[in-house]
């Protein structure tokens, strides 16, 4: 096992990782920006170092500062959490050079899955279903031909893209030409790589993702799927596990495809394979997230596997503690991401001081958070306050428990998305479980 783990992140995920380390008995090192001096991860860690100014670029994305803190403190492993350094192959490479274990996949696997066009090609070769698409587009006329074959609409994507940037939908030849040109410009600007490709665009599919864990001995298991179809501008709002749209047969196929995908990437660590599911239960590989996911907690609730603990365990070189047949999924879990945003004003971020804070509790309720009464939410980072998760034997019971917990939750001093969720979980369509990625659009229209 490691001697000491540095957590190169902030907020609730830093707290989540420190908790896992403490339970294993591992000393932890927190790093923080000046704005985060009073954050919970700083006081929970064994030691803490201020590594830079408020802006992420000079702190949580500042590689020399992070590495300096690691060498000073004598940490022999770095956990990147999610966001920030978590999908930076160059950072994983630097850790390797300094003999510090990056808790995540190898730089090679990250590069392979990070380049969307290469990832699609690799998946197709290994028999993982992908949406019909092209390689890197070199000729616009050829692209038009291909679009005719797939049938419009199509989506043009930057190979280096992610997080909703560098993607454009086209409904006809004229739009396709514009989309390719604009997408290339955007991709060059945001990612320094102008390559784009095209694939058939599924209108309002479900967003289904499968949690996998792989050790360095080539063992791969999956913990079932999560449904993240309720999104607003590609940002997930509600996640649940299992998906109400996936039956046992599809679940088995999805799991097997995800394990094949991880094996194809020679993957080590925890990861998520994202699929699009259409109305006829066909699923297509979308991309792989080579890191711990925000919504991993709901998979923990239905599988009883501590994903972060297992992630650290396999990073230390140990084999997986579970075989696939050990994993028995039980019950239903739902997560709401509570943000410091004003739902009345188009989810405008609302940083400020939390002056009152009472968390919900009781059986099957989990709150992962880094805030407390008197905590000031800085304006420099994301607006996540907490992840509220509820488990129950059935979906309806989990939903009712979520409603009860949302009503119990008190956060004063800043605007939050609590009232928005209190309404959402009582919505008829949400109750039915029969929705797709178009949910928020219809929901908003009905409200107006």
């Amino acid at each position, binding site marked *: 096992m490691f001697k000491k783990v540095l957590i190169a992140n902030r907020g609730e995920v830093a707290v989540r990782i420190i908790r896992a380390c403490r339970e294993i008995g591992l000393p932890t090192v927190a790093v923080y920006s*000046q704005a985060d001096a009073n954050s919970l991860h700083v006081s929970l860690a064994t030691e803490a*170092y*201020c*590594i830079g100014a408020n802006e992420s670029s000079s702190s949580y994305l500042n590689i*020399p*500062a992070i590495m*300096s803190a690691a060498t*000073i403190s004598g940490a022999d492993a770095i956990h990147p959490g999610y966001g920030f350094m978590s999908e930076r192959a160059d950072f994983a490479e630097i850790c390797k050079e300094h003999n510090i274990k990056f808790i995540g996949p190898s730089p090679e696997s990250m590069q392979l899955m990070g380049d969307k066009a290469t990832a699609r090609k690799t998946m197709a070769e290994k028999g993982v279903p992908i949406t019909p698409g092209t390689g890197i587009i070199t000729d616009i006329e050829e692209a038009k031909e291909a679009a005719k074959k797939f049938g419009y609409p199509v989506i043009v994507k930057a190979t280096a893209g992610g997080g909703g940037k560098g993607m454009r939908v086209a409904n006809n030849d004229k739009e396709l030409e514009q989309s390719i040109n604009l997408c290339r410009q955007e991709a060059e600007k945001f990612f320094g790589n102008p390559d784009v490709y095209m694939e058939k665009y599924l209108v309002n599919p479900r967003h289904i993702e499968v949690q996998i864990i792989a050790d360095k001995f080539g063992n791969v298991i999956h913990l079932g799927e999560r449904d993240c179809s309720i999104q607003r501008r590609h940002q997930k709002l509600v996640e649940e596990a299992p998906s109400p749209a996936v039956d046992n047969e599809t679940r088995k196929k999805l799991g097997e495809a995800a394990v094949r995908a991880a094996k194809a990437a020679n993957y080590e660590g925890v990861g998520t394979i994202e699929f699009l599911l259409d109305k006829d239960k066909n699923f297509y590989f979308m991309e792989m997230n080579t890191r711990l996911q925000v919504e991993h907690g709901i998979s923990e609730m239905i599988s009883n596997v501590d994903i972060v603990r297992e992630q650290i365990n396999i990073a230390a070189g140990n084999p997986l503690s579970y075989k696939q047949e050990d994993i028995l999924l039980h019950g239903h879990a739902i997560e709401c991401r509570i943000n410091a945003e004003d739902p009345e004003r188009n989810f405008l971020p609302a940083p400020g001081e939390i002056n009152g804070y009472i968390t919900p509790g009781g059986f099957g309720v989990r709150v992962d958070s880094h805030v407390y009464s008197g905590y000031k939410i800085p304006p420099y980072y994301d607006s996540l306050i907490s992840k509220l998760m509820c488990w129950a034997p059935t979906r309806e019971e989990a939903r009712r428990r979520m409603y009860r917990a949302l009503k119990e939750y008190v956060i004063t001093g800043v605007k939050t998305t609590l009232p928005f969720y209190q309404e959402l979980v009582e919505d008829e369509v949400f109750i039915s479980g029969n929705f797709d990625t178009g949910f928020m659009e219809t929901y908003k229209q009905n409200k107006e």
Partner: protein
Amino acid sequence: MKDFTPNYIEKVIDIMKNNELTEVALEDEHSSMVIKSNGYKPIIKEKDIQKEEELNTVSEEAIEEEKPVEEKQNLVPIVSNMIGLFFTKPSPDEKPFVQVGDEIKEGQIICIIETIKLMNKITSDVSGKIVEICIEDGKPVEYGQVMMYVEKN
């Protein structure tokens, strides 16, 4: 407060000297006081001061203790803009770049901060006299931490 008169404290100090006591704690309903002896020279520290003026007359040493803190407010701190190891010398056998009491000029090298084996020479952005070096040679310094205090010219 009537018991904590200068005469009373002198008596206590005499008792301490004669009996070689190192510490005496006194308390009444208004205030408390700890007198610590450093060998035969007692150092007096006060706590919980309700009537500060009266207590200040008690011990000149106690007043002196507060003085450097007041002075610091007129000093310019030199703050680290990176995290690393703080070194006062170019190498272990050489002389320190600067010492307390030295006059320094803006742009002069004052220390080295080592980050991942890179030796970053740090220069002063003020001219003046160094009155305090706050970090020990070879110890970590964080972003935003005060390394030295300079009395500006």
